[in-house]
């Protein structure tokens, strides 16, 4: 990065010692910060491998061999963790699919066509982008009650079709990769507008769709506020609601080993997927975000 700065700065080596000192300082701080980020997950891992008896005896930095026992106890316990995970997966996957596909479509409408309300719509979406869903939650709950959608997944999934932030990212990305001449060419070849969108625009937008699919998925996977208001039946609850239930249970009577395994069960899948995809995630963050 910033290669063009390199040569010039290297030529001014008058403060070589201070560069070295600053580098040492930078690495020290970076290691410290990384430690602060990872330490908690290390503790989580160690503690989920230890039995309740071992846990009450105090902390040791080495893992024990009760991971499987804790896991079996949790599995046979009262929390419906498997249905919780399946529910979270269903809701998050469908949310990600709807949010990316329809946001691309909305961005395409603004990007490729000239119509009277175009400017107004674009401004409107940008203006409502930052308004949090919590402020309309009251009306939302009343509405889904009237629509008979209470305790169903639909009110958690379908609203993702209107995701202003995903739209904004798609629009930014589209501006840089989709020339209108391509759309013109498709029209000359006799392709219908919807087909052009599905077979030319969507494939071109794949990198942006991938990034936003990951983010929409994770946001929905981690979401606690709305699902807790909508879902009531145990078999329909998503993982964050189960975590809250674990917290409000009389936790001292619990087997703490199970508690740690439950937390690990909701955290580690995301960490593993993240480590596999991190290159795309970290790189994609600023792809369509704010520009300097």
């Amino acid at each position, binding site marked *: 990065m910033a290669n063009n700065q390199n040569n010039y700065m290297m030529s001014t080596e008058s403060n070589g010692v201070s560069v070295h000192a600053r580098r040492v300082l930078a690495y020290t701080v970076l290691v410290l910060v990384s430690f602060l980020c990872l330490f908690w997950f290390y503790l989580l891992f160690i503690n989920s491998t230890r039995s309740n008896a071992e846990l009450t005896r105090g902390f040791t930095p080495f893992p024990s061999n009760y991971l499987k026992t804790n896991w079996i106890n949790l599995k046979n316990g009262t929390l419906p963790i498997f249905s919780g995970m399946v529910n979270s997966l269903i809701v998050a996957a469908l949310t990600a699919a709807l949010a990316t596909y329809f946001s691309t479509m909305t961005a395409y*409408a603004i990007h490729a066509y000239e119509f009277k309300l175009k400017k107004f719509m674009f401004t409107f979406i940008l203006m409502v982008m930052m*308004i949090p869903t919590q402020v309309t*939650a009251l009306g939302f709950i009343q509405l889904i009650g009237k629509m008979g959608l209470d305790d169903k997944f639909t009110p958690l999934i379908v609203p993702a079709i209107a995701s202003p932030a995903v739209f904004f990212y798609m629009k930014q990305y589209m501006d840089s990769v989709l020339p209108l001449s391509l759309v013109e060419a498709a*029209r000359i070849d006799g392709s219908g507008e919807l087909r052009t969108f599905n077979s030319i625009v969507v494939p071109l937008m794949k990198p942006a769709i991938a990034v936003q699919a990951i983010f929409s998925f994770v946001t929905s996977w*981690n979401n606690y506020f709305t699902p807790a208001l909508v879902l009531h039946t145990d078999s329909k609850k998503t993982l964050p609601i189960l975590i809250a239930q*674990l917290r409000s249970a009389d936790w001292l009577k619990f087997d703490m080993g199970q508690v740690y395994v439950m937390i690990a069960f909701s955290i580690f899948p995301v960490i593993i997927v993240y480590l596999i995809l991190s290159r795309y995630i970290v790189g994609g963050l600023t792809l369509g975000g704010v520009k*300097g």
Partner: protein
Amino acid sequence: MKKTSKVVKYNKWGYIFLIPFIVIYLVFQMIPLVTTIYNSFFENYRSGLKIIGPNFVGIQNFITIITNGDLPTYFKNTMIMWIMGFVPQIVISLILGAWFTDPSLRLKGQAFFKTVMYLPNLIMASAFAMLFFTLFSLSGPINSILLQIGVIKEAYQFMAHVWSVRWLVAFMNCIMWFGNTTILLMAGMMGIDPSLFEAAQVDGATATQIFYKITLPLLKPILIYVMITSLIGGLQMFDVPQILTNGTGDPMRSSMTLIMYLNKHLFSKNYGLGGALSVFMFIITGILSLIVFKFTNSGEKN
């Protein structure tokens, strides 16, 4: 003649492609917003099994949440915890961003550090808070470690003191968001014209001088953007304090945030006060959003 009609024919597809967004937005955002505002003017709650209202009471709900001290207290709590998390976050992010983009340092392993720093942002906030609750509990590993190395003589009750709970919430928010902020600020720093750095270098400016005199002033728009979006996020603070304190905001509701309070009213179906609180939140976030909008929009033109 034929050509114009064809263009018009194409352009109607602009409206067609907008239909899903508009319909869903109207149904699931606009209608709820209107009914939320409508609810704020009515007395509507449950007392035991009895439903009181809805009776029109004008702005009485707004007066109630302000005069009974709820809104000011929870607003204050939310702001305190946001500031406690945001200040260290922006300082760390600025320093790390400056180091990462400083060509004279040529730091290695940047991809690794960025990956690690961004990791906490993707963790389920409720699970992360539950983890902290267990780690910082009376018999948890943190107390156990502090006892073993002799920092404290007896286990500290992190959950029973106002400031330790607030610090935990702020710390978690800071850890979860500083990676994101660093990456945003880095994008801004890399967008600064390199010739400015070269010129300063030629004039014999030190790294510190370059940071204060060039990087910081040119980064101001992004800094303001980061601050306001973080403030909007901070006002929505919910998952972490809710799970950490089991929704009570204890001790003495000193870590109760605005959205936790709203959540309480939504569960007890006190739609009058809940509505008033929502409208209050809507106005604040609306104003802040307009400021962000001004920034993103001026960025568009460049």
